[in-house]
């Protein structure tokens, strides 16, 4: 299982901050989440950064996931 963490507006759109999903690639994981959580989530996910285990995921190649990986969806930040 992969843990998907959602923050800010993404968490609100999905109605959950943590989701467990079964996926072997990052794009498949995100497709599942978008299909499950609907248009508001799709919109915010399009302008969010994606981290895998704390590192920014490359956008130009497929990212393979392993059991226990933590993927995080980070909408635009607003600290301070």
């Amino acid at each position, binding site marked *: 299982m992969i843990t998907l*963490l959602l*923050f*800010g*507006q993404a*968490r*609100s759109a999905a109605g959950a901050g943590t989701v467990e999903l079964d996926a072997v690639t990052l794009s498949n994981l995100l497709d599942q989440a978008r299909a499950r959580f609907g248009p508001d989530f799709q919109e915010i996910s399009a*302008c969010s*950064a994606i981290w895998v285990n*704390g590192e*920014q995921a490359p956008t130009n190649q497929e990212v393979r996931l392993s059991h226990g990986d933590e993927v*995080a969806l*980070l*909408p*635009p*930040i*607003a*600290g*301070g």
Partner: protein
Amino acid sequence: MRDAADSVEDRWIGIQEAPLAVDEVAAWVATPSCGAVSTFVGIIRDHSEGREGVTHIDYETYSEYAERRLNEVADIAFSTWPDVGRIAIVHRIGRVPVGESAVVCSVSASHRREAIAAMTFSIDVLKKCAPIWKTEFAGVARAWPDNGSTILATAEAASAWFAENSGLMPHPVTS
């Protein structure tokens, strides 16, 4: 507030739900070798762009990485301004009502120029690299700020700041 003795000697980095003791942080930053302390306090205001009647803001973080990012900001500030004595960056999370402090960033240095520059750097870069989000509330109505930033790596956010603020660098950048 945690006790200053718990802090690494030259820095006080924190993410906490308790109200920020701003005076305590600014006092901790001061040392005998430093002639200047520069402190920024971010306070919840009653309005934001296009919205009136803000009552409170809820802050959330990616807790595993938020404090790490604040430490990285302090690392870069220390290495950029060698005259800096201490750095404190403490951010509040959870519900923060109007009028209360959300963040305090305080820096001491031998002289004011370095203290002000390193403090400005720290708060500016924090806003570009720390995984922190806010939800604004006006009573029960909630909204997200429209002016959020796409999160950058700390080094990337610092480089962008240096490019835009060469006048605040210890040795002005010439290209």
